[in-house]
């Protein structure tokens, strides 16, 4: 069948600069460049180009420019180019259209409509370069009261405390499984988390045995619907165990790691035969209701001998506040909420682009609901889904989050360019692939250093912003919506966010 699809990208090759070194040919995993010996020329195959920009970055003479293809259908605001292309693709294949990374549709990004406060005159701002600025964060359940006795050698805590995990800054890496991303990328996240004293999250691909001792203390291990690579040692080597109920990019559905990505090592880690699809069912089949969730939470507490906080990750959906309340009452120590802009290695596009609600609204609603019920201290809240910069992070914490998960930002730091083709397994940057030729492009030493750099810069920025508000400990901004104002938001939006309009 001859394809009627237009190419997505145009490859412009400045022949006067091209030295036919064939770097582009070697760098392109989809065959967008080929050297033709008969004509002694580099040829472009635009129909396969995904716009990852690997060739443009690596071209030693700057001869390449890859940009959206100029060919356009007649302008139509309803029947956009993307809609037409998708229809044609479905007509040619009969398939569900897949995509990768987060929602790219123009939903309102509330972070861009919230502004932060700063001190002027009435209280002093603090200079974070000279004075201490504290970002340490505890994740887990806090008691309502402490029983403290005075004994001979000072005060003694009598209360039994629930396990909490302390992290050095309120930013952790989101769940990305080995299988979805390459071993190198997975390892880089672990190395950076360890260096920065924060957490990485294994997703549901298991934690390779050789990484457990060194990186277990910084690991959140997931127990998800596929139960891949899950056993008691896996739980016990980690800091936090997370039950994955949903993901912002694909609320309500499971996932299929295609057989091509189930390499020898991925298979070993997930404990399934090489080359089979790794199917994660939509629900966890032992959880059909809130009391079943409670059953799994306590099963995990049992298997870890009550030594680890148990987190429950959900996608932000209509009744998220009520659901969150139920999760806390079911015994969870942490709730992670993933909003509509959360990323994915693979999801049906129709789901990614149409299901779920924005994180900002969900987070505000959950925080308020838990406070109204007097149970906010019974769990920590981690916000996830589309954090692009430290400003977003601080706004989330001011809305009520204890910490945030970042996924896409971390991948971008390692090289990702958001071409959204993660599901093909042909990531030219070596991030989202199991092809050894591609994955070795990502050197964990370098990639982890980039991640550390990024987190350090965010850390500095957060301290600067906090200092500006006259705050020197992160706990003082947590849920402190006085330091937020809305701009360009409607009344109902300000109501849900619990934030005043600027100037109010």
């Amino acid at each position, binding site marked *: 069948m001859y394809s009627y699809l237009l190419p997505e990208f145009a490859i412009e090759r400045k022949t006067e600069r091209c030295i036919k070194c064939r770097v582009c040919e070697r760098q392109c995993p989809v065959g967008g460049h080929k050297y033709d010996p008969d004509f002694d020329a580099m040829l472009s195959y635009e129909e396969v180009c995904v716009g990852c920009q690997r060739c443009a970055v690596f071209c030693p003479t700057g001869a390449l420019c890859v940009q959206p293809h100029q060919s356009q259908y007649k302008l139509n605001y309803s029947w956009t180019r993307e809609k037409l292309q998708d229809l044609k*693709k*479905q007509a*040619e*294949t*009969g*398939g*569900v*259209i*897949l995509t990768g990374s987060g929602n790219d549709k123009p939903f309102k990004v509330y972070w861009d409509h919230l502004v932060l406060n700063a001190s002027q005159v009435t209280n002093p701002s603090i200079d974070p370069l000279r004075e201490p600025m504290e970002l340490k964060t505890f994740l887990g359940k806090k008691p*309502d009261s402490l029983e403290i006795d005075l004994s001979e050698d000072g005060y003694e805590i009598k209360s039994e405390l629930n396990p909490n995990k302390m992290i050095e800054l309120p930013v952790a890496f989101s769940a990305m499984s080995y299988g979805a991303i390459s071993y190198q990328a997975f390892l880089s996240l672990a190395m950076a988390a360890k260096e920065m004293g924060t957490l990485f999250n294994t997703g549901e691909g298991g934690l390779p045995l050789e990484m457990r001792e060194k990186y277990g203390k910084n690991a959140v291990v997931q127990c998800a619907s*596929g*139960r*891949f690579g*899950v*056993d*008691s*040692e896996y*739980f*016990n080597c980690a800091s936090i165990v997370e039950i994955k109920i949903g993901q912002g990019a694909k609320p309500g559905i499971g996932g*299929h790691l*295609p*057989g091509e990505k189930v390499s020898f090592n991925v*298979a*070993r880690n997930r*404990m*399934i*035969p090489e*080359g*089979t*699809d790794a*199917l994660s*069912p939509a629900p966890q*089949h*032992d959880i059909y209701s809130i009391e079943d969730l*409670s*059953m799994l939470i*306590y*099963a995990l507490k*049992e*298997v870890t*001998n009550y030594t680890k906080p148990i987190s429950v990750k959900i996608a932000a959906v209509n009744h998220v506040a009520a659901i969150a309340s139920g999760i*806390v*009452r079911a*015994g969870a120590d942490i709730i992670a909420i993933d909003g509509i802009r959360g990323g994915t290695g693979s999801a*049906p596009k129709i789901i990614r682009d149409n299901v779920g609600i924005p994180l900002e609204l969900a987070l505000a609603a959950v925080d308020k609901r838990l406070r*109204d*019920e*007097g*149970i906010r201290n*019974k769990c920590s809240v981690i916000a996830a889904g589309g954090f692009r910069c430290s400003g977003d992070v601080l706004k989330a914490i001011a809305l009520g989050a204890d910490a945030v998960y970042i996924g896409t930002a971390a991948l971008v730091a390692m090289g990702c360019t958001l071409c959204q083709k993660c*599901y*093909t397994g042909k990531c030219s940057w070596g991030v989202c692939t199991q092809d050894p030729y591609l994955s070795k492009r990502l050197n964990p030493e370098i990639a982890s250093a980039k991640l550390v750099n990024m987190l350090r810069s965010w850390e500095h920025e957060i301290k600067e912003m906090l200092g500006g508000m006259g705050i020197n400990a992160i706990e003082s901004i947590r849920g402190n919506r006085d330091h937020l104002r809305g701009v360009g938001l409607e009344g109902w939006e300000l109501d849900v966010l619990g934030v005043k309009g600027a100037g109010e």
Partner: protein
Amino acid sequence: MAGLALKVGLRDMFLEGSRHVSELGGYATVSGSEAWVDALNLKHKELNDLLREVVSQGARDITVKNVFGQRYIGTRLNGIFGCKVNLSIFGTAGNDLGAFLNGQKLTIYGNAQDGVGNTMNEGEIIVHGKAGDVAAMSMRGGKIFIRNNVGYRTAIHMKEYNDKIPVLVIGGTAQDFFGEYMAGGIVILLGLGLAEGKNHNANYVGTGMHGGVIFVRGNIEKSQLGKDVGIYATDDRDMEIVRQYSGEFAQRFGLDTEEILQGQFRKILPLSKRPYGSIYAY
């Protein structure tokens, strides 16, 4: 409710009122490597604390009586002192019996509820009765023998890797979605209690199955199968497997292997390792 708002706060239904293990001495007797526990009125965590405690005192063969629904029995014995423990349980075992089990042996003289052997890794569970829903869910190693029937979604997403192959043998029949999403493992459904001329209970057998094998003794119609599986005659190699595990089953429940093997066995296999490989547009 003006002024100080009343809030109900949080009550932990699981831990509320649980006694410390040091207060539970009266419920257990340890003698050498043997121990006896009376679970009557013990809460879930109390019983599991106590089991851990008696194991730490050296018990390896433990008899638990008066079990009425306590959950996660065996789960928390994983990895302590690296020892294998034999638990004999009298009563009705609670949900998630042997969840994440890692090498212990549990024998239940009575029925089990939902989630038997949930994500079990190693060990053995023997149920002298029936089991509820989602038995052997995501099981990845070890053996489960259930004398009577099982409920919905049994063996869902069971997996195997190389020579680590979980085995589940069921004496009776099963309800719907049997073997759904199965990715590996050996399941044998014996249908011993089936009335003459009656089919097995289950519909949608093996929906989404992409690995492993289900052996069925007793009649099952094609219409009862999911669309991702086929049903085939067994060959000699299959029957060796069936003989071995039917034998182990018979031995545990005092039945006659030969009598079991006289029935007609067929096998259900996935049509593809990748049942959903072609539903997507790339």
